[in-house]
């Protein structure tokens, strides 16, 4: 582990890489704080920019966006009471009342410290756990890999979205998109229907931009039409706001209650490591647990510091947790890490249990970039807060068109092909309707990225030994399959209970 970190330090400590991480953090914070624009969108649009970079540099930039984005939601959550990202929902419960009571500076500083310390705790969990899990996974045969993917996908489906059925449909739709193009084992072209563009398959990046950026922008203009007056009022409110940050004082407040901080960060890391569950779930659960264990239960919701700390350390620590299965198994825990993996794949690096052994400099680079990004986030937030607060002013009529052009450029950059843009348009429309009717998008994306891996392993397994029962008799494989079935049963049971 130490050699990994050493390698990482030598990879990351170059002035141009450090600058790229800093830019990433700032971009992430801005994306996180603007309501309706998600961190995922920012990462997806960063991806095309990294094509020309060295792999480590590209990944470092994206980690910066991710860490910054998780903490950016704090700003609008505290000052306006609207979460900039779903990951900051619980932050509004206490940070907003605190700001209304005349302590906006305290609310922001507490959140920044909690975000930072949560990241650092999850960093230590990441570097100590990921190599162990990867070591175990080296024993996996194609049976285990296939069952693992089945389990990962079903778990994703059961934790995201409200309907199990719609989630499963979304996941299978993703798997189906991934089958278009060259067969992964023998290489013949499938389902291209003699359309030249489809012959090489539907590019992953195009699916990502269409699903996560274009469709969200469509949704944003639809919503903004309904909430026009509301947002104008809020803009006014934030403009006249005056506040002072007290970094040292609030640091002491956070550190005084270490149990709350550590508990919330552990919750965040564990939830982050579960495929599909991320910051949006972690901040609520961490907040809820903090309230349950606190001596001052009544103060929660009125502007209590423990609430802010729990929510913000809960969401930022998911980043480290999310990276655990991503690095150790090649299974992305969320749409965001799916983008990270695809960035690796663009550079010809195959994610999976062998990643740590084969590409120690990349893995070390990811670890160290995460650490550095957390520090940059801390400084950027404290030093740049006044600037970030201003950004909430940028109206949709400027943002949406500019980002749409960025989407089109991003999709074009991959292959320099105009026909990819037609695909982008179609996928954007599909994504819009899927979101509108509450089909979760994360299962689609993870289906697209895991689909080929699942297929290769399934066929390899049957090629090695035509005996189908091996999937159910190999202990690790059957464990994963049981896990998959249990996650479905559990969700069904839960839905039934909440309906009753």
């Amino acid at each position, binding site marked *: 582990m130490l050699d990994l970190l050493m390698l990482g330090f030598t990879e990351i400590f170059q002035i141009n890489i450090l600058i790229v991480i800093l830019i990433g953090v700032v971009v992430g914070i801005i994306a996180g704080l603007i309501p309706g624009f998600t961190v995922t969108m920012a990462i997806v649009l960063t991806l095309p920019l990294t094509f020309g970079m060295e792999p480590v540099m590209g990944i470092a930039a994206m980690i910066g966006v991710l860490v910054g984005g998780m903490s950016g939601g704090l700003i609008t959550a505290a000052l306006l009471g609207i979460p900039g990202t779903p990951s900051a929902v619980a932050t509004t419960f206490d940070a907003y009342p605190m700001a209304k009571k005349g302590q906006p500076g305290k609310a922001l500083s507490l959140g920044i410290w909690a975000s930072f310390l949560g990241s650092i705790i999850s960093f230590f969990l990441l570097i100590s756990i990921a190599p162990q899990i990867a070591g175990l996974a080296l024993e996996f045969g194609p049976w285990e890999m296939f069952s693992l993917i089945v389990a990962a996908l079903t778990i994703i489906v059961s934790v995201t979205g409200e309907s199990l059925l719609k989630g499963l449909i979304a996941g299978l739709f993703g798997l189906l998109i991934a089958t278009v193009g060259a067969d992964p*084992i023998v290489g013949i072209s*499938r389902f291209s229907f003699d359309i030249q563009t489809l012959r090489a398959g539907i590019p992953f990046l195009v699916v990502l931009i269409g699903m996560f950026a274009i469709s969200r922008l469509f949704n944003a203009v639809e919503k903004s039409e309904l909430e026009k007056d509301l947002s104008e009022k809020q803009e006014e409110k934030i403009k006249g706001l005056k506040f002072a940050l007290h970094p040292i004082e609030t640091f002491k407040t956070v550190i005084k209650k270490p149990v709350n901080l550590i508990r919330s960060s552990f919750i965040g890391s564990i939830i982050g490591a579960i495929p599909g569950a991320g910051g949006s779930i972690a901040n609520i659960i961490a907040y809820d647990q903090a309230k349950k264990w606190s001596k001052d239960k009544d103060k929660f919701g009125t502007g209590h510091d423990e609430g802010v700390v729990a929510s913000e350390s809960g969401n930022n620590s998911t980043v480290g947790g999310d990276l655990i299965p991503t690095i150790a198994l090649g299974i992305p825990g969320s749409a965001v890490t799916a983008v990270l993996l695809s960035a690796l794949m663009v550079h010809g690096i195959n994610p999976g249990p062998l990643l740590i052994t084969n590409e120690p400099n990349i893995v070390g680079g990811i670890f160290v970039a995460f650490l550095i990004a957390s520090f940059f986030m801390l400084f950027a937030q404290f030093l740049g807060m006044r600037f970030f607060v201003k950004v909430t002013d940028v109206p949709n009529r400027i943002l949406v068109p500019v980002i749409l052009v960025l989407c089109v450029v991003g999709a074009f950059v991959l292959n320099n092909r105009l026909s990819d843009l037609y695909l982008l*348009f179609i996928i954007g429309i599909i994504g819009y309707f899927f979101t509108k009717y509450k089909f979760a998008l994360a299962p689609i994306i993870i289906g697209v990225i895991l689909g080929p891996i699942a297929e290769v392993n399934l*066929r390899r397994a049957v090629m090695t030994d035509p005996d189908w029962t091996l999937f159910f008799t190999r202990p690790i494989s059957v464990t994963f399959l049981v896990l998959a079935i249990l996650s479905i049963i559990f969700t069904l049971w839960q839905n039934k209970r909440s309906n009753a």
Partner: protein
Amino acid sequence: MGEIIIGILLILLSAVIYFNSGDFQQVNDSILGPGSYPKLVAALLGFLAIILVIKKMIELIKTKKPIFEEGKKKFFLNVWKEHKIVFLIAVSLGLYIILMNVIGFIISSIIFIIASGLIIGSKKKKDIVLMSVISVTVTLGMYFFFENVLYVRFPDGILF
């Protein structure tokens, strides 16, 4: 209603994939050829989509609420009001992509940013000037960044 339409489209999609999966030539004697896995996924997707459609249809019949509660005209008027901007933005995005091939990246992007900015926001004179400045800056910035730093060749259009 929307779910039913999505469900039916997904059923059609899985049927197309399922019935096109049979005719790949077998390269070797492996048990699972190129068509087997897509066939499996398509079958599962089709099955679940059928369940979704049936479920939503039952819900629709059960509520017994007529879809056109306030008359057909009003219903469509509301749908149009809700989706007007999305529709216009989608159309202009489509046109933008098509036009890019004809008039080139720079001009089409500038037009697109101004046009969609006006669709979303106000149409005051001051805002049009602001949108124009932004669109030119953003477009040229992106153009030079991608052409010079990432060596991307944008379409110049056939007219120029």
